[in-house]
């Protein structure tokens, strides 16, 4: 936007242009208003209003044990999933970044491929792999490695495995986008100054890829906080994440207010995380731009 202190003869023209722009984006704004702002507003309203204004729902969320436990478990699982996804995703992104173009397209295509299968199907696929009579247990028994089937699913372990699988692309893609922007010359410069490949990696490449790490971790962590189907199917009923608390409150206890309060607390936590992260890096630069 031009900043001028002298009177601008085209100011009127500019105002008209702004009005026109606003008119052009108004359909999009209406969609956002109807599909996002209104429902979220209604949700927030429901959490504080039940025959009059009340903070009872929030009092419960912050004082009752089960809510604390559920939030704690959700954050623990999200943290574990994020770390594992980072450890698995970083080498993949690094590989995609260092091989010739054709290969990197193939690698990225493989990373994105699972998006074409629904989360539900992938959860069931993990069930088929991990359960007592599943592929992995059968195979290990066939090899005589184990005599009793391992408990790989219907617990936190199974939940984490499947969640990592589903969220991995959200780690790889921002990492790859960031790595693409690191000039290859820097690595060569490091090498020409006598640094070993590992030293160049740790002193040059890794620090420069940090915005991608932060962006990928934020994406995975935040998405994991709201996971529902995967822990529901693979958690065996004990892995009660926050989203399940919301659905239980509606389905079992008919408490829309309590469910709304939990949802609002989760939403605020996510927004807070985004706010903190955006102080360090510009998220849209990493996520939106190639």
């Amino acid at each position, binding site marked *: 936007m031009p900043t001028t202190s002298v009177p601008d003869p085209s100011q009127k023209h500019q105002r008209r242009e702004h009005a026109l722009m606003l008119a052009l984006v108004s359909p999009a704004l209406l969609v956002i208003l109807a599909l996002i702002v209104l429902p979220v507003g209604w949700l927030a309203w429901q959490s504080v209003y039940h025959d009059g204004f009340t903070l009872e729902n929030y009092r419960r969320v912050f004082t*009752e*044990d*089960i809510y604390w*436990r*559920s939030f704690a478990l959700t954050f623990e699982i999200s943290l574990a999933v994020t770390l594992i996804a980072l450890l698995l995703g970083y080498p993949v992104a690094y590989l995609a970044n260092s091989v010739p173009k054709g290969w990197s397209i193939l690698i990225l295509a493989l990373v994105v491929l699972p998006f074409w299968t629904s989360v539900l199907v992938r959860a069931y696929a993990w069930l088929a792999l991990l*359960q*007592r*009579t599943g592929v992995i247990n059968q195979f290990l028994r066939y090899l005589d490695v184990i005599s009793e089937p391992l*408990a790989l699913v*219907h617990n936190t372990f199974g939940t984490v495995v499947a969640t990592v699988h589903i969220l991995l692309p959200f780690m790889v893609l921002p990492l790859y986008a960031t790595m693409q922007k690191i000039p290859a010359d820097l690595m060569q410069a490091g090498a020409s100054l006598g640094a070993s490949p590992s030293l160049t990696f740790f002193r040059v490449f890794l620090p420069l890829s940090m915005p991608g790490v932060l962006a990928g971790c934020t994406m995975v962590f935040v998405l994991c906080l709201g996971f529902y189907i995967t822990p*529901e*199917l693979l958690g*065996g*009923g*004990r892995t*009660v994440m926050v989203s399940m608390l919301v659905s*239980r409150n*509606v*389905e*079992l*206890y*008919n408490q*829309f207010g309590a469910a709304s309060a939990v949802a609002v607390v989760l939403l605020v936590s996510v927004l807070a995380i985004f706010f903190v992260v955006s102080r360090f890096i510009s998220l849209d630069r990493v996520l939106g731009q190639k």
Partner: protein
Amino acid sequence: MTTTRNVGFGCALLGALACGGTAAGAAEQITFVSQGGAYQQAQTVAILDPSAKKLGITINQDSIPDAWPAIKTQVGSGKPIWDVVDTPTGNCLRGGEQGLMEKLDFSKIPNGAAMPEAYRSPYSVSYEFYSSVLAYSQKTFPKDAPNSWADFWDVKKFPGRRALRNHPFATLEAALMADGVAPDKLYPLDVDRAFKKLEEIRPHITVWWTSGAQSAQLLNDGEVDMEMAWNGRVSAVAKEGAKVSFTYNQGILQSTSLCILKGAPNLATAVKFINEAVDPVHQANLPLHIDYGPGNPKAFETNVIKPERAAQLPSEPSNAAKQALMSYAWWSSPAGEAAEKRWASFMQK
């Protein structure tokens, strides 16, 4: 006249105008809501179509897996578009207490009035029965299968992996029966004793299932060796060839009931329909199409259900005698609701 099937919950949102359109011109009509799937298909053939024909009315159908939130919203809006709902009996009772259901005038429902008192409430009539039974793998237990909840709790005599429903309904009853309470002496439930008994079995429960489909899959895949499951789910899996079986002994007999939304648009027709829907002959038709028992026990006296078929049904009198009849009145009482809430913290310990 026939029934018309409207698709899904969308109708509820679009309103009566859009959905009722199919019935334009009919003198009398109602909108009937059930849970969908094979069950709603079976009742359409067995009960809804014949009732519509006999009464000369049009029955518009809608379906929703869990009607409660929609009932609350519809009646809350002051202009419900549904008339009759087929929903777990507890919803009818709780709805009645919260002013969401019409009180039924049983003088206009003679078929319902003739049913045992335990099978109805001021707001509802039992429509069909299912049972939460002890199911087991015949591969793991080729002989000497577990036959009571005490056996289910006996991990030494019956080693194996177990699953229970992630819900207090029937689970607390099973725990009390495992602890020696007689099926007909369960209510009011001794909640403390039930949770104490559940603590005992908790380490041996591999899965706390949340949907009927999940329970069927657990049994089918051999993921668990025994579990609590709904009889219809177990027999469906057995029909597909899985080596599984179940016992009605100490099963917990549960029902869905018919009730009418407060301020229903077609109240008079709805009452007429309820009476027709629990007619013994229509009721006897239901188990010919699906593994659920008729809500009206008189159905077993109509000779429509063959003896060998009757023996498989949860509400057949001699089967019913082996089971506990769930008290929805207790579950919708303050003590019952407190027990439901306690379940949530039990699960997260």
